[in-house]
């Protein structure tokens, strides 16, 4: 155990000290914060300031997210200056004219127009009742947010679940190719070496994930977007972490086993092809599941390891999935992880000292 922790410690220190790690973190944070804030930056403003000159405030109906601040001016000239200086978005003069710098904002125009109409009707003594809106379908309030979250999740999981096992593979080949492994294996057992590497790089992956989550959630709360979060957000976040751990453990074990067959970095891409194809397939289905979380294909694949490690968390984010479904899928994945880890450790142990030409997997499996 001690040997494994030493190996893990070295992996973490080595990765965290590289420039690439820090640069990667900064880029991810900027990207995530950017994506989180984008709808807010690109969408129209949700508060306006209106100047008033010998006018009354208009009664803007509640219910929208629109806030209007009223500011009085003594005469029209002052109001005009305020409009041109962009102190106010528009100015209402004598309850009849609206001044703006260029064409008025569409939304603001509609609001003012309807509020004005309402005021006139009311002053004529007619009582009006607003339309009441009612959904007879499911609760769709959170659908949009859910699918946005799911898309981001697909991206994050793909980056981390693909990238981290790749580091495991490169580390295994580095040690095998340079024969350090011959010295290492006189002081630690193969499972300690492999376990330490997978554990250490997994921690690095979790650090990345934590930074992404904190940055994303932080930006969402800071910008007020968090009010749109669906209920059970804490569960969704916890689920992401658990699914990342499962997916990473599976693919890292496969990457280590495959990488132990070769001795040169140039061969890494080639030997990992079956694994990367599986990852891309998972990615494709997960992407689809973000859009159609309850479709038959997405539902079935969300139970099949290792695809489930990417598809299920995305589905559970994009739609409300009963907890038992997620648990069943999680248990299946955990069983697959356990089996794969045992198999991978065996392959690694037998292949990692066989330097030179690429070792065939079938040969390793058959040897005693």
């Amino acid at each position, binding site marked *: 155990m001690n040997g494994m922790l030493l190996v893990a410690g*070295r992996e973490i220190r080595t990765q965290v000290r590289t420039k690439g790690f820090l640069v990667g973190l900064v880029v991810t944070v900027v990207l995530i914060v950017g994506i989180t804030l984008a709808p807010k930056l690109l969408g129209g403003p949700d508060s306006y300031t209106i100047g008033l000159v010998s006018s009354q405030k208009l009664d803007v109906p509640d219910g929208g997210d629109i806030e209007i601040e009223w500011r009085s001016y003594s005469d029209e000239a002052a109001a005009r200056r305020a409009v041109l200086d962009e102190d106010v978005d528009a100015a209402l003069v004598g309850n009849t004219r609206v001044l703006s710098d260029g064409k008025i904002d569409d939304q603001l125009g509609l609001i003012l127009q309807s509020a004005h109409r309402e005021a006139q009707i009311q002053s004529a003594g007619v009582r009006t009742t607003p339309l009441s809106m009612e959904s007879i379908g499911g609760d769709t309030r959170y659908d949009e947010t859910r699918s946005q979250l799911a898309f981001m999740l697909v991206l994050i999981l793909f980056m981390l679940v693909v990238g981290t096992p790749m580091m495991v593979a490169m580390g295994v080949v580095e040690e095998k190719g340079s*024969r350090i492994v*011959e*010295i290492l*294996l006189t002081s630690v057992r193969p499972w300690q070496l492999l376990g330490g590497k997978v554990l250490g790089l997994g921690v690095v992956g979790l650090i990345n994930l934590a930074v992404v989550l904190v940055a994303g959630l932080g930006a969402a709360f800071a910008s007020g977007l968090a009010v749109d979060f669906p209920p059970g957000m804490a569960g969704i976040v916890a689920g992401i972490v658990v699914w990342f751990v499962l997916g990473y453990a599976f693919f890292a074990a496969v990457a280590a086993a495959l990488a132990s067959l070769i001795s040169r970095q140039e061969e890494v891409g080639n030997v990992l092809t079956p694994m990367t194809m599986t990852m891309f397939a998972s990615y494709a289905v997960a992407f689809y599941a973000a859009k159609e979380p309850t479709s038959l294909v997405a539902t079935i694949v969300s139970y099949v390891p290792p695809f489930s490690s990417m598809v299920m968390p995305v589905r559970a984010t994009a739609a409300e999935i009963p907890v038992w479904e997620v648990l069943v899928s999680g248990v299946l994945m955990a069983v697959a992880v356990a089996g794969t880890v045992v198999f991978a450790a065996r392959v690694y142990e037998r292949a990692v*000292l066989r330097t030179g030409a690429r070792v065939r997997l079938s040969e390793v499996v058959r040897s005693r």
Partner: protein
Amino acid sequence: MLEISHLRKTFGGVKRALDGVSFTVGQGEMFGFVGANGAGKTTTMRIVMGVLQADEGEVRWKGGPLGFAERRRFGYMPEERGLYQKMKVADQIGYFGRLHGLSPEAARSAADELIERLGLTERAGDAVEALSLGNQQRVQLAVALVHDPDVLILDEPFSGLDPLAVDALAEVLQERARGGVPVIFSSHQLDLVERLCDSVGIVSAGRMVASGTADELRAAAGGRLRVVVADAKPGWAAGLPGELSVENGRDVLIVGEGDDQRILRAAVEAGRVEHFGVERPTLTEIFREAVA
């Protein structure tokens, strides 16, 4: 005592790498392992270190079987050098010390001591990849020594080192041997092996063709009588065994076996005898003879 007995190893069912190699190395003994490329030195060392499994035969340490726990106390320098290229020298040596079970403090002080001892003080904070090959070799050696091993197995530790580094390394190895550690190293520098080693093993085509102390090997190889005669009468050696040649205007007679007293009398009669004595062959000559 490290006992290597009857090791056999075949690669891929065809190439016989080891064909019954046996030798023993006692406490504090320095054993030089020589042989042509591909003779089986590296394979033997890899089997001792558990990197390879022997098909037959076994390695015993202090009379018992050699397992992981015992090997963990061995120091190993493989033929192909392996270090983390991007890791700093001091960190790297310390890391291997920790893997061998040293406490953080003990690992650091052992690393510092070896760094100073091997003349790496100025490079301690550099990444290994920034070092010259000779310096990388010193780091590799430090990695093998850091945990104060019970046994040292070094594959070609001297290759690629400058004469000063060779001396520094030789001194370190002798010191460890004096401390009771069996040291096995392979080398093609036979003069070095002859100078440093208590015993020598010559391996050829997977077999140990000769082993023993350097003196034993020389004695076993037999002496040759060398007679140098100045101003000798022509034809004096006609009735004698051996080969006659001329060096620097003097007749030189080399005799493998023969009646030395008769040869001496003939030489004295023939002219002025400048040299008469039995010569031991050098290790290089024994080696050539053994692997031929």
